[in-house]
């Protein structure tokens, strides 16, 4: 059987899709296998002209790239949104706890203290939202279908969290200089910087996915 039309079709679809690589690779592998099965059903004899024609017919039966991409992209976009929400839900509580253990910034200048408190409050609020997003795109989605704007909301919540963590990292760095417990404050500042980079990157990927066309839940 000729794999040409099938491989070309899967490659074209792959180029049109964006999102977590693992899920993308898994869904495309399943599609490739299904196309091979369909082509084998249409022409059981491999490596003949008939099998090449069967592969083309299988590709036509499964749908064009324009027809398939929105349904695949919907799942990839939601997976990216879940990844962004999970990153926030894991890292932000760690950072808040780290800041707590590093000690209060009350001894710092008032502006620095106020900035640290606000950044922590913003990080806590975005962590809470991230948990809600995870629930809405998981099993809770059986009762409450995820609204179309949810991935973009996750993306901007992630961007806000990245900004709050970035500001938090700066205040922690300043606090480390002033704090009696400076090693822990410095370690938390480093963790905050790494978290800022991680959350900002996943939020950027989520914003990109959220802008791509995708199908509604029940489109075949």
């Amino acid at each position, binding site marked *: 059987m000729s794999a040409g039309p099938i491989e070309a079709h899967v490659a074209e679809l792959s180029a049109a899709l964006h999102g977590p690589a693992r899920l993308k690779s898994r869904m495309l592998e399943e599609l490739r*296998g299904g196309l091979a099965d369909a082509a084998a059903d249409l022409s059981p004899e491999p490596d003949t002209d008939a099998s090449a024609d069967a592969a083309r017919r299988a590709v036509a039966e499964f749908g064009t790239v324009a027809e398939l991409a929105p349904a695949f992209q919907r799942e990839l976009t939601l997976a990216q949104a879940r990844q962004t929400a999970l990153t926030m839900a894991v890292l932000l509580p760690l950072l808040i706890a780290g800041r707590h253990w590093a000690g209060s910034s009350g001894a710092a200048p008032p502006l620095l203290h106020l900035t640290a408190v606000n950044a922590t409050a913003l990080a806590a609020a975005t962590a809470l939202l991230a948990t809600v997003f995870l629930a809405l795109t998981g099993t809770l989605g059986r009762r409450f279908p995820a609204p179309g704007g949810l991935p973009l909301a996750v993306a901007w919540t992630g961007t806000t969290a990245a900004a709050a963590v970035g500001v938090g990292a700066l205040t922690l760095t300043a606090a480390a200089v002033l704090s009696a417990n400076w090693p822990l404050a410095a370690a938390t500042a480093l963790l905050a910087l790494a978290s800022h980079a991680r959350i900002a990157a996943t939020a950027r990927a989520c914003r990109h996915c959220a802008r791509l066309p995708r199908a509604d839940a029940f489109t*075949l």
Partner: protein
Amino acid sequence: MGRLPTVRTDAVRGHLDGLLLAALEAGPLHGYAIIATVQERSDGALELRKGTIYPALNRLERLGLLRSTWQAEGERRRRCYELTDAGRRALADERTAWREFTSAIGSVLDPALREAT
């Protein structure tokens, strides 16, 4: 049996979850076998855009209605899906909703049938 008239994609929309769950009721299947089961049971009458089955299966798994694992088959591997307990309950709910829906529509379209029952 003669081939039934084709039910187009847009008419099937909204029932895809129930169709996929029902195809998996008897036991685990991979994606193409699920497509084949739906088409065989409908005598080819349901027109599916076959390629979109794969994201639909992923969606049902994300919602906790299915679970899946890779299974080796010769040089290839296939992703096999099976119903979870929540998936079985969702299938029962889909069936109940469908019976109520067809009963209500049937009562209006065919009043004689309602009087007979």
